[in-house]
C-alpha cells in the first residue's frame, strides 16, 4: 500500500474538520471499550490468561527457528506447498505465479492485513486477475477505492447512508430501497455469493500457524474466510512467519484473548483450523493449498529492541482505546496499521523518516498497554522511536533544540525552580484577574481551541517548602 504517513498532521486536520465523522468516531470510541470490558469481566481470570499468552508468545519468538522449522515440516507433510517471501514484492509475485499456473481469472479474498501491506490486490489486477474482497468491510472499502481505516472494522469510517449510495451506484440491481443495514448486508451477500462459487483461487490470512500439527487457524464472524478456504480449487494462505505458535492449545489461548479484545465477543461465529489440500477420502475442499510466509522486515524486528512488537495479535484493542486514533481516525496514519500498534509497526516496517509524525501521535496516556492482550509496552516503544528519531536528526531541529534546552534546565534544579518561579509569578500577575489567557506566545496550538488557565501564583516546590517550614514551627 502506498504510504502517506508523512502527511499525518494534514490528514488529521482534515479528519477533525469533518464534524459528522468526528461524531461517529466518538460513538465508536465510547462503545468499543465497553464491549471489551464486559467480555473481559465475564471471562474469569483474564489477567492470568494475558500473562500466559505473553510468556508463551515470547517463548515462541525466542525459539522461532525451532517452531518455524517444525511448522514447515508438519505443513509440508499435510500436503501444503510452503513459500518464503523476503519482501512484499516477493509475496505478490509468488501469489500471481500460482494464480497464473492454474489459469485463474477470479480470486475471492478473505480479510488479510498482510496483503494490504503488500498491495496484493492491485498487483493481481495488473496481472489480469479479477480480485474481490469478500469481508463486508473490505468489500465496501475496495469498491469505494479507499483503504481500511481499522484493522478489524475496515469500513467503520463510513456511514450507512454513504454505503447505501455506493451500493445503489455500483450494483446493477434495479429499483430498491436499501433502507436498513440488514438490507445492505443482504445485498452484499447476494452479490458476493456468485463470486465465491465461481472463484478459481481463494486467498485468506491466518490468525495462527500451529507448529505441532501444521494447521492454520482462521477466526471470523462472517463466514467469508471459510467460503474462500473451502470452495475454490486453490487456496493460498498469505501470512507472516511471526504467526507461528507451538501447540494447538496455544492457538486456543490466543483465540480466547483475540475475540474478547477485538470485538468484545466470547467467541466468534467461526473458528476453523485447516491442515492442507483435499485428501482422497474428502468430500470437498481445495485441491491445492499454498502457504506464503512473508518476512517483510519481521526478522529485522526480531533482532531489534522492538522484538516484543511481534507478540501483536492484531486485535485492534489499542486502536479502540487510543484518544489520538479516536480523534483523527485510521486514515490519518497513512498506511495499513493505524493507532498505537501502527505507530510502532509502521516506522519499523517502512522507515523512521516516512513515519516521522506517528511515534509523536501519542499522549502517553498508557491505555494501549493496559488493554493490549499481549502486554506489549507500546508507550515505551513509541518513546524509544521518538528518541531514535531525535538521535538520527529526523526530528525537526527546532524541536530537538527546544528539548535540549529543556533538558539542560531541568537537570539544574535551582535554575529550573528559579525560572519557573518567575514565569508562574509573571503569568499570575498578567492573567490572574481574567483567570486565563486567550493568547499566549509559543502556545497558539493550545489557545486556538481553549483558554490557557492562569497559574495560582506560586510553584508547587515553593508552596511545599513554605508549608514544610510552617509545619516545623
Amino acid at each position, binding site marked *: 500500500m502506498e504510504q502517506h504517513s508523512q502527511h499525518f498532521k494534514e490528514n488529521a486536520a482534515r479528519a477533525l474538520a469533518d464534524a459528522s465523522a468526528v461524531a461517529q468516531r466518538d460513538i465508536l470510541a465510547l462503545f468499543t471499550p465497553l464491549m471489551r470490558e464486559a467480555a473481559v469481566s465475564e471471562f474469569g481470570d483474564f489477567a492470568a490468561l494475558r500473562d500466559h499468552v505473553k510468556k508463551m508468545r515470547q517463548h515462541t519468538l525466542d525459539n522461532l*527457528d525451532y517452531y518455524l522449522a517444525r511448522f514447515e515440516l508438519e505443513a509440508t507433510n499435510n500436503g501444503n506447498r510452503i513459500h518464503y517471501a523476503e519482501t512484499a514484492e516477493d509475496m505478490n509475485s*509468488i501469489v500471481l505465479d500460482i494464480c497464473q499456473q492454474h489459469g485463474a481469472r477470479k480470486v475471492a479474498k478473505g480479510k488479510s492485513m498482510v496483503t494490504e501491506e503488500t498491495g496484493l490486490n492491485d498487483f493481481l489486477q495488473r496481472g489480469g486477475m479479477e480480485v474481490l474482497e469478500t469481508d463486508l468491510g473490505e468489500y465496501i472499502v475496495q469498491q469505494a477505492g479507499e483503504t481500511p481505516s481499522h484493522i478489524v472494522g475496515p469500513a467503520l469510517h463510513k456511514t450507512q447512508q454513504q454505503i447505501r449510495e455506493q451500493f445503489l451506484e455500483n450494483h446493477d440491481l434495479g429499483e430498491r430501497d436499501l433502507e436498513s443495514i440488514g438490507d445492505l448486508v443482504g445485498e452484499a451477500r447476494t452479490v458476493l455469493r456468485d463470486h465465491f462459487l465461481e472463484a478459481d483461487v481463494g486467498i485468506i490470512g491466518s490468525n495462527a500457524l500451529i507448529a505441532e500439527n501444521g494447521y492454520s487457524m482462521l477466526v471470523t464472524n462472517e*463466514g467469508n474466510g471459510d467460503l474462500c*478456504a473451502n470452495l475454490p480449487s486453490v487456496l493460498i494462505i498469505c501470512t507472516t512467519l511471526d504467526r507461528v505458535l507451538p501447540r494447538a492449545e496455544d492457538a486456543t489461548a490466543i483465540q480466547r484473548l483475540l475475540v474478547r479484545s477485538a470485538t468484545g465477543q466470547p467467541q466468534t461465529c467461526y473458528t476453523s483450523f485447516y491442515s492442507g489440500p483435499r485428501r482422497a477420502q*474428502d468430500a470437498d475442499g481445495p485441491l491445492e493449498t499454498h502457504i506464503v510466509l512473508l518476512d517483510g522486515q519481521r526478522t529485522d524486528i526480531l533482532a531489534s529492541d522492538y522484538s516484543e512488537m511481534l507478540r501483536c495479535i492484531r486485535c485492534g484493542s489499542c486502536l479502540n482505546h487510543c484518544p489520538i486514533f479516536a480523534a483523527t481516525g485510521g486514515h490519518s496514519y497513512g498506511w495499513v496499521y493505524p493507532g498505537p500498534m501502527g505507530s510502532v509497526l509502521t516506522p519499523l516496517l517502512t522507515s523512521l523518516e516516512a513515519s516521522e509524525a506517528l511515534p509523536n501521535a501519542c499522549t502517553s496516556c498508557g491505555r494501549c498497554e493496559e488493554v493490549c492482550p499481549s502486554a506489549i509496552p507500546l508507550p515505551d516503544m513509541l518513546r524509544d522511536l521518538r528518541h531514535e528519531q531525535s538521535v538520527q536528526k529526523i526530528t525537526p531541529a527546532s524541536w530537538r533544540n527546544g528539548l535540549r534546552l529543556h533538558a539542560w534546565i531541568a537537570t539544574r534544579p535551582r535554575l529550573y525552580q528559579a525560572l519557573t518561579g518567575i514565569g508562574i509569578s509573571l503569568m499570575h500577575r498578567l492573567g490572574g484577574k481574567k483567570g486565563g489567557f486567550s493568547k499566549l506566545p509559543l502556545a497558539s496550538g493550545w489557545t486556538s481551541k481553549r483558554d490557557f488557565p492562569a497559574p495560582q501564583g506560586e510553584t508547587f516546590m515553593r508552596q511545599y517548602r513554605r508549608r514544610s517550614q510552617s509545619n516545623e514551627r
Partner: protein
Amino acid sequence: MNDDSRSRIMSKVRGSCAGNEAAVIDQAREALGSAPSAALPHTDTCIAFMTNVLRNQGTLDVAPDRSAAVKMIAQYVYQHYRSHRLVAGNDPRLAAMPWRDGGVLPRFGELEAGEQIALSYAQWGVAETGATVFLSGKHNPSRNNFLPEHHVVLVDADSLLPDLETLWQRVNASMAQGDRPRGINCVAGPSSTGDIEGQIVYGAHGPRAWHVVLLGEVSAEQSDTARALHAGE
C-alpha cells in the same frame, strides 16, 4: 519453495534465537503450563453448552431420541420453507435416522448453490464456547457448514466437552491414530457482521440461522435452567 529466500530468512531467524536443543525448548514450553479457560455459565456441562448456544444467537431443540429429533427437524424445516427437503452429509449416523417418522426427504451429499438447508452431525459440542465442532471428511463436507441459509446441527448430549483444551485432547488423540482432518470447523452461531456502523446483523456470508438439536438424555430441568440463564442476561 525458493530455497535461497528460505535460507536467508531462516538464517536471520536463527541469528536472533538462542539455538537451544529441542529438549530444552520443550521443557521451557511445558513449564509455562496451560492458559485458564473461560468461566462457564453453569457447572453442568450440558446446561453450560445449551446456555452458550442460546447466547450465540442459536436456536435449540432437545430430543430424547432419534425419532423425536427427526420430527423436530421436520418441523423446523417446514416452519421456514414449507417443505420437507434438506441436504445432509454422507454421515452414516444421518443415513440411519428414521426420516420417515418426520416425513423428511434428505438428499445426501454436498450442498449445491440454491439449496437452503443443510443438516450436519457435529462430532462434539464445546460448553465453553457453545460451539459445534465438525471434522471435514468423506461424511462431512465443509461447504455444508457455510453455504446454506439455515444450518441445522445434530449433536449428541454425551459428546459435549467442557472446554477447548478437552476438545484438542480429543482431536490430538484422533490425529495420533493417523487421522488428520483437512478442516476442523467450530461453528458458534449464525454468521454475523458489525462492519456497518458497528451494528450486528445476522446472515453475513454464512448461514442466516443456526439451529442445534441436542440428542440424548437431557432433563427438562437442565433445559429450563439453560433458558433461564440465557433469559437472565
